[in-house]
């Protein structure tokens, strides 16, 4: 089995089997990072460009390590949206780099839909590393990998996603993924941060964090993205932390072996109480570690799909003994 598309734009278009394939492949790739020589030659000769129009340390580092551990050549370009608006268009930038024989672009952009736009403008594979408030597919995949490791399976789990749902691409990708895989998803946030129609995505919606957390197997806290808020959505961080922040008291409502997740970076004392981010059932560092394995799997499967799309001109190998 392989992926149907040579691009990864979101979780929404993926089938359950494709998600399963990525997660299984990631499990296999995870071992590479435990070796003394953390490198395999799988993508030798491929050129992978990370193109970040939004600041990000962890996602870009994670993608770069994934590409390097697969022996691909990597180039990283980062720029701010404002300087881009003044100069070259996104499409021109990507076409220029593509003409130097880039095989894959990993794109982060503040505009929803920017990676999809690129799939229509160039031949290389496009991997979405987070676009606006749309999707962040590799984050949802690494979350799923972490949940699977800790809980055995995703189906039937109760997952609470708490915080700024409106601006969160992580929430959207996770809702798509978790509902496809058969989890029960509840989202909670202040009324101003619950976008219209979010319930139609298959999650139950509430403004009461306690209600969402009660009996949950997984509690996923979202980051308050102050940079995406050009209006006041709640009166103060203090009040937000009081109503929606995760603390030991609130955590008691969850199932006794519930795990705590956060896509990072954490605003300590806001989404998660100071002492809880490091507590024993927080899997935040597992999430980061799994990020590299998931991204290796994605880059491998995308390259494979691209080779298939190119016609697979080679001879049948008959098992390649």
């Amino acid at each position, binding site marked *: 089995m392989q992926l149907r598309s040579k691009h990864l734009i979101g979780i929404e278009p993926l089938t359950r089997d494709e998600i399963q394939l990525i997660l299984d492949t990631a499990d296999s790739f995870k071992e590479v990072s435990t070796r003394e020589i953390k490198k395999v030659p799988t993508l030798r000769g491929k050129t992978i460009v990370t193109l970040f129009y939004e600041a990000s340390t962890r996602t870009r580092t994670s993608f770069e390590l994934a590409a390097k551990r697969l022996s691909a050549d990597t180039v990283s370009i980062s720029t701010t949206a404002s300087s881009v608006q003044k100069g070259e*268009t996104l499409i021109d930038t990507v076409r220029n780099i593509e003409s130097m024989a880039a095989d894959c672009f990993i794109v982060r952009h503040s*505009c*929803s*839909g920017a990676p999809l736009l690129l799939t229509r403008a160039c031949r290389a594979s496009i991997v979405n590393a987070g676009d*606006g408030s749309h999707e962040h597919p590799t984050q949802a995949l690494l979350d799923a990998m972490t949940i699977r490791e800790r809980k055995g399976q995703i189906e039937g789990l109760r997952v609470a996603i708490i915080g700024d749902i409106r601006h969160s691409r992580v929430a*959207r990708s996770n809702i798509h993924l978790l509902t496809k895989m058969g989890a029960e998803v509840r989202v909670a946030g202040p009324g101003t941060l619950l976008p219209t*129609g979010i319930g139609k995505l298959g999650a139950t919606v509430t403004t009461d964090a306690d209600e969402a957390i009660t009996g949950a197997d997984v509690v996923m806290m979202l980051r308050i993205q102050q940079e995406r808020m050009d209006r006041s959505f709640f009166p103060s961080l203090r009040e937000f932390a009081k109503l929606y922040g995760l603390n030991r008291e609130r955590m008691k409502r969850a199932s006794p072996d519930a795990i705590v997740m956060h896509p990072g970076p954490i605003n300590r004392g806001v989404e998660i109480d100071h002492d809880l981010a490091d507590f024993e059932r927080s899997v935040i560092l597992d999430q980061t570690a799994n990020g590299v394995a998931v991204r290796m799997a994605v880059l491998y499967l995308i390259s494979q799909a691209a080779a298939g799309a190119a016609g697979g001109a080679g001879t049948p190998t008959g098992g390649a003994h």
Partner: protein
Amino acid sequence: MKLLIKNGRVVDPSQDLDDTRDVLIVEGKIAKIDASIPEAGAQVLQAVGRVIAPGFIDMHVHLREPGYEDKETIRTGCAAAAAGGFTSICCMPNTNPVNDSRAVTEYILARAREEGAVNVYAIGAITRGSQGDLLSEIGDLRAGGCVAISDDGKPVSNALIMRRALEYAGMWKMPVIDHCEDLNLAENGVMHEGYYSTVLGLKGIPGMSEDVMVQRNILIASATGQHVHIAHLSTAGAIAAVREAKRRGVHITCEVAPHHFALTDKDVSSYDTSTKMKPPLRSEEDRQALLAALKDGTVDCIATDHAPHTYDEKNVEYDYAPFGIVGLETAVSLSLDRLVHSGLISMTRLVGLLSTNPARILGLKGKGSLRIGSDADVTLLNPQRKITVDADRFRSKGRNTPFNGWKLKGAPAATIVAGKIVWQE
């Protein structure tokens, strides 16, 4: 100069006519309509199977000249209108400079006489520079030839300015056309707020941002007794408000754009920037409300909000693309296909929406009718012709249409302005 249009189905709501007739045009005026008129030296245009209608009027067009000639010029915009079956178009004032003075109005009208294939009417700005605070010289705009005022593209946010504009323009019975949008509620939205904006992660423009401004305008129109025309109405809430206000006798009229009755916010799913316009493509419920209102008469006219942009301007991230799509060359086919052939409205009602009513709203003398002595502006339709929309063949400089490749039934067959055939299929 005589032109005889033979054996067509004449549809003219202004004289309650829907029958097979010949139409004789002499010296740019309608001279005679009869069951059979002898040729007698006239140029003959056979119209079997065609509809003969009073020339179509698009009261909401952006011609872009002066200032944005890379998007459109008066010449290309008029050519697009002719090819789309329109004999008259009204151009909005958001040019550069803004049409807030008689000098700009006269410039536009002079250019249109020199280069335009169709009649051009100017709409002047309500406020200077359309900045929303100081009234333009509305009397002078009127004297220069403006038929209405509007700050289109921008709403009149200040209710006091709206009141003053209505009271002042009312002296000449000039309608005030408002782009209804509460900019605070609309925030920096780029598409309709709803399920699809949530899934796509695009900022939403809620329906209520339009509804509250329509309600405000109804209150001010009612209190002042003056005429407000709602541009490109798009929501179920606004339709309900207008319907109710009309019932109470408030002097309010409204237009609907073809894309709002043909598409919904679901069509934004590809992030195709040719689905980005203001008001945005609304929900299916809104679309159904518009269709019902087109049928029951709440909607007075169909206007395109033709808004050409260059390829490069639209070939960017959805958030960065300018609002607006072209409409002149697809409006008639969309209307025939989606409204008439679907059985929603009659041909007579369609001619009312595209000709009789806009002429009445704007007080255009000699337009919107085929009565003897009227201007010989005639739109011929071929209701059975099947077309495939091909943006590469548009006369407009703008290619920014969401309808490229659409197969539609019904199209304009010929466009006649002042007795002269300016376009023929």
